């Protein structure tokens, strides 16, 4: 009895999870694996259009003979790069109409015109002309003949499904001189974006954890940048930072803090003089990182605040009795309590900043030294149009991602053991 119940339970369970599993498999897992397939292929954006045999039907009356009519099919291969094999042609005609002098590729049977047009090479174009007559010697209606549309079918090689592979893409990725630069930009962006977001998250959480007027409102406001759509925010920032008519530059010039406008999003380097040493700062990248911090510190804030509120008050009271100062309280009580949250946050944010696409794309489009790996996927795949290259860069991202995840789950497992 119980085994029967268990069987029913199992069957129900599979039934309940099946739709979700299928959907996630086909839209997330299958594409990740097909990246591998595509990255070994020489595919370009224009190859994605499946070649189609096409026919345009023209109907012409013959002057002296009203019961005859000429039909011209303008045939062509829609693809400029691939051939279509075994093209078949089908068209329907009204009753009482018969072809005269039919091409031997074609057959006419019970109002149906069928043709075997063979193989069409790339860029193929040809006209097929057939004269028809009415068997009852009546006038042929041009309109009626035109109302039927010819149907064509043919086989073409789908470039994605062939077994031709190449290592070209990966060679290009690795040999590219800019690859090291690309990696360092990505890591620079990821690391400082993550650290910045966490530091500001801790500061904000410390502030909001105290009692003051308008605290709940403040908590909502702090989450605004994270909740609002990235498109709107990125364009607002772009206007804010604009060198000629942007608010920030004009404010700074107005208060005589800077002499001339600074193109914060369009300038690759800026030289800073600190204590007599010249530092070269990557300006546009720094600006993008600041935007990133601005947008994602709310998340760190939310987590750390939740943890801070769970710290027992007695700890602080005891510290007060011992005469600890605020810095000692922070270092010895608060920090150890939130360290676990911070390390998890760091890993998660690191993984996510590593894959961040929208923010940089909308602010700079990857120009002036802000090209990271995800931006490169887009540029290779869609700006240059080399789908294979784009996939190869995606694979590089996935490999890094798997390494990060491995470390993350190792750490998580360790933490679980400790508790």
């Amino acid at each position, binding site marked *: 009895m119980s085994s029967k119940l268990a069987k029913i339970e199992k069957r129900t369970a599979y039934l309940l999870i099946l739709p*979700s599993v299928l*959907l996630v498999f086909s839209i997330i897992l299958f594409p990740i694996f*097909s990246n591998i397939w595509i990255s070994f292929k020489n595919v370009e954006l224009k190859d994605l*259009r499946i070649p189609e045999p096409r026919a345009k039907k023209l109907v012409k009356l013959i002057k002296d003979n009203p019961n005859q009519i000429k039909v011209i099919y303008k045939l062509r291969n829609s693809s400029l790069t691939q051939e279509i094999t075994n093209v078949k042609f089908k068209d329907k005609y009204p009753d009482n109409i018969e072809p005269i002098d039919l091409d031997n590729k074609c057959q006419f049977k019970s109002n149906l015109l069928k043709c075997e047009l063979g193989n069409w090479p790339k860029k193929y174009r040809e006209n097929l002309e057939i004269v028809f007559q009415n068997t009852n010697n009546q006038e042929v209606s041009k309109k009626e003949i035109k109302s039927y549309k010819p149907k064509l079918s043919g086989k073409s090689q*789908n470039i994605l499904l062939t077994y031709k592979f190449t290592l070209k893409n990966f060679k290009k990725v690795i040999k590219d001189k800019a690859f090291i630069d690309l990696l360092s930009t990505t890591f620079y962006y990821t690391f400082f974006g993550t650290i910045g977001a966490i530091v500001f998250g801790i500061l904000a959480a410390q502030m909001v954890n105290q009692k003051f007027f308008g605290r709940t409102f403040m908590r909502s406001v702090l989450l605004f940048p994270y909740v*609002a759509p990235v*498109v709107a*925010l990125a364009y607002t920032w772009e206007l804010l930072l604009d060198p000629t008519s942007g608010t920030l530059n004009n404010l700074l010039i107005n208060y005589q803090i800077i002499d001339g406008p600074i193109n914060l999003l369009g300038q690759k380097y800026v030289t800073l003089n600190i204590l007599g040493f010249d530092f070269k700062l990557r300006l546009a990248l720094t600006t993008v990182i600041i935007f990133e911090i601005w947008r994602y510190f709310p998340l760190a804030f939310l987590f750390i605040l939740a943890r801070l509120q769970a710290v027992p008050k007695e700890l602080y009271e005891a510290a007060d009795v011992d*005469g600890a100062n605020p810095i000692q309280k922070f270092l010895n009580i608060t920090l150890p309590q939130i360290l676990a949250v911070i390390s998890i946050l760091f890993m998660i944010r690191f993984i996510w900043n590593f894959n961040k696409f929208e923010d940089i794309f909308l602010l700079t489009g990857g120009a002036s030294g802000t090209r990271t790996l995800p931006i490169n996927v887009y540029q290779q795949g869609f700006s240059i149009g080399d789908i294979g290259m784009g996939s190869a860069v995606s694979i590089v991202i*996935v490999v890094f991602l798997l390494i990060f995840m491995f470390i993350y789950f190792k750490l998580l497992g360790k933490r679980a053991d400790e508790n």
Partner: protein
Amino acid sequence: MKIKNILTYCFISSLFLFSLICIWKILVTLQGIELINFNFNKLFIFGIILCVINLLIGKKFNLNIKIIILALLFSIFDYFVSINLPIWYSLGTFLVSLFFFNTIKNYDKNFLSKNHSSQKLFFNFLTLFGITLFSFVILFPFYMMLVTSFKTQALLLLNPLDFSINFAQGLPELFKSYFIVFKDYNFGRYMLTSTIVSLGTVIITLIFAIPAAYAVARLNFFGKNFLSTSILIIYLFPAIVLVIPLYTIFSQLGLRNSIEGLLIVYTATTLPVAIYMLQGYFKSIPKELEEAGIIDGQNWLGIIFKIILPLSLPAISSVALYVFMIAWNEFLFSLMFLDRPNTFTLSRAIQFLNVGAETPRQYLMAGSVVVTLPILIIFVYFEKYLVSGLTAGSVKG
């Protein structure tokens, strides 16, 4: 009383007062008023003098009168330092300094002679300063977005610092950009598309996720543990690695430029987190309730609909709001899959506006307000639900 404490107190307090006044001055400048100097030296020294006076008076007479007098002194001084400013500016200065002196009114000689008082002072001011600065930095872009949408291109180029809103021009003129955005740029249609896509994603995700989450939470089957761990791992994969294969597959299947295609992708990408959130909640529902249902002769569907769903409405609404937010804000897939204007979502339409021919910036900002406002209203209204969604779903973002 330690001399070090007094010095820290004077220095930090005056600096805090000065930074508050700076923020006020920046806001004033942005109303189109010419103000080119913060007058750091004079204000800072006068601030120190006032702080010392505050300390000397201590609690000798009524605190309220004390702060009003000090604030009045400061604003009169500031009025004479910065010339030719309207009266409402000075009124603002007065209120800001009133707020400041209110926070330091309790500091006197006794407080400063206590242990760690300089550090405590420092952190008190840091908190106050931080709250002011954080609010300013966060709200300023939103403020700019809103005000820019009320202005005209000519005015914006003439004086980029003038953010004053001219209410005298009448409402139709004030909301002109919004009329144009909805009429000429078709934003009504995009908004409808965005709403359909977001609501559709919420509904389909819930239809798929609730049964799956129930199975993971309650039923025993082979591969359950594997499934529940892989949910999180799958969720960690970013959209950017899916984009190329999905683009190739969708363009060959003719699913690009269709709302259905977008719905499928959005549902699949939000499904893992929805299942993860729901199963956690389902596990917390006492099993006895379901056993009672079984005794009453309910089947699995009956249990889900009559027992689990009514009990887990809070969790379901929080999932629904979170999924809605993700779908409404989503940009990458809509950029990839939509290139015909009749299928655009709001995010894609705004990007199209910006990339296309020189669109006047007030239209761009009006469009941005149109896409931002609904989600912010939803967030403020349903904050409790959304925050729990954000916390659970925060592994991605």
